């Protein structure tokens, strides 16, 4: 960021822990919209430090949306009166002043940049390219914010898979930023059906969790990747006899394809799946959904 910094601009952080994050952006692939939360206190503190004579009333905030070579610009007001969504007290509020539609953009490959400029067109603060959280419906933001932690994996609509759904890693060119993802085939409507039918959610998500965990265990050089580390930590907490590090050592010293299906590691994964089902009450949700269906058919 120091390169060519003639305007003493500050960097806005987005891929960092929640309490230090300046900008949070989520994209709903179902609603084809984006949601943006700004941590104004943090942002103002930073900018004021570098620009003591800051005029908040005339300093404008812009959100630039990129998809490949396409760029779209959305105004987010001024530092004095910013437009941004907010979350507090379990309540997620959208700011109606934001033009948030991504209709003309392929929502699955969109990225964002925030720019804050003064009346002389000098950039006082900017982010680098922001990769958003991908969510199904906007209500999922609550889950992310309530847990104060990253979701174990993201969901994404994809036109590149042949199966109805699949698992994999987003940002897989950068091991420090890879994110476990369930991909839903764009030609089908499974993602939105999961929203309304918990039985489908349980069937897909439980197996997706299992397969993603297996793949995470096989990854090397991901110590800096907080998504993968959180995923592995979650699994480790479900096990008392075996540590992730031990598994990775075993895999590294043997034939990984055989080792990853060994009874010992299978048990490790099964315990993690059991914890996952329990924590997110998936079996209970499945049972409730089935009972509701029975009641409806009897009626």
């Amino acid at each position: 960021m120091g390169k060519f910094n003639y305007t003493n601009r500050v960097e806005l952080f987005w891929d960092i822990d929640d309490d230090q994050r300046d900008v949070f952006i989520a994209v709903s692939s179902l609603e084809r919209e984006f949601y943006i939360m700004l941590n104004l206190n943090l942002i103002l503190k930073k900018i004021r430090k570098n620009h003591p004579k800051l005029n908040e009333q005339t300093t404008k905030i812009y959100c630039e949306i990129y998809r490949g070579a396409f760029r779209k610009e959305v105004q987010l007001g001024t530092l004095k009166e910013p437009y941004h969504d907010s979350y507090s007290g379990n309540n997620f509020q959208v700011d109606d002043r934001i033009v948030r539609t991504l209709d003309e953009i392929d929502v699955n490959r969109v990225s964002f940049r925030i720019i804050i400029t003064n009346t002389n067109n000098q950039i006082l603060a900017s982010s680098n390219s922001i990769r958003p959280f991908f969510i199904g419906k906007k209500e999922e933001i609550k889950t992310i914010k309530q847990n104060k932690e990253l979701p174990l994996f993201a969901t994404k609509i994809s036109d590149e898979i042949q199966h109805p759904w699949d698992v994999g890693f987003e940002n897989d060119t950068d091991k420090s930023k890879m994110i476990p993802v369930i991909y839903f085939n764009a030609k089908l409507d499974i993602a939105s059906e999961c929203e309304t039918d918990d039985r489908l959610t349980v069937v897909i998500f439980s197996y997706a969790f299992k397969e993603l965990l297996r793949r995470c265990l096989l990854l090397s050089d991901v110590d800096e990747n907080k998504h993968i580390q959180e995923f592995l930590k979650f699994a480790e907490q479900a096990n008392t006899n075996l540590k992730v590090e031990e598994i990775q050592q075993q895999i590294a010293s043997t034939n990984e394809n055989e080792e990853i299906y060994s009874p010992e590691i299978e048990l490790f994964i099964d315990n993690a799946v059991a914890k996952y089902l329990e924590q997110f009450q998936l079996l209970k949700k499945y049972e409730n959904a089935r009972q509701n269906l029975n009641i409806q058919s009897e009626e």
Partner: protein
Amino acid sequence: MTKFILKKFNENGEKKFEEFFDRKLKNKKTPIPFKYLLDQNLTDSVDGEIEIDNSKKFKSAYEFGKYLDEKLKDLKNIRFETGIFHWLTLVFFDQLFPGPSGGSQKIKYILNKKSPSSWKKHLVRLRWELYSQFKEKSIVYLTKEMNNWSDEEESISASPTLNSSETILDLYTKLYLRYDNKKNPTIISKRNISGNHRELTKELSIYQLNFDINRMSVEELLNLLGPDFKKWIKQTA
């Protein structure tokens, strides 16, 4: 057959078109498979009965972009519809391939779904995009023949900020676009003279880290530039 009703390639159609292109690269005599354009297994229909005339000759990339915009203007959200642009590339393939010096770079003809940032170098999509966005002003980037990937296009396709900004287009126009006695547009910038459009692109790439160049006026941008660039303003065709 010279007139077609606009369609778009489906997944199979795009695959077949790319396979044809790869064959063409290896053997320039490979015939152009215009039959793909009508093959129901390879294409899907699009809204409306839009007639595309592949016998039409275009004087420049600008004329081509204008034609595409006229034909596609009523279609919604086609920006990322690779199937339409690949179909159109095949329609006009004999006018687009090869380039004037034999150029046949794949990204000029095939939109790689895994690399959308390279789409700005596509001979059909970029011309449509520039004209549909900037209309008559897009001439500054599109003065050359339709199969000629111009230096100007190469320069502005360096970044989405540059090729999406009307102010920057106005700046290029002010510095480098002139009309000769016959009112033909011409670009006066030369690669071997300092302050040319390639150097301007590099300069703007640095400025955009510090200045909000998308929202600056042409005069404000000119104030940032040194004499090497400003000297072009006084130059005639």
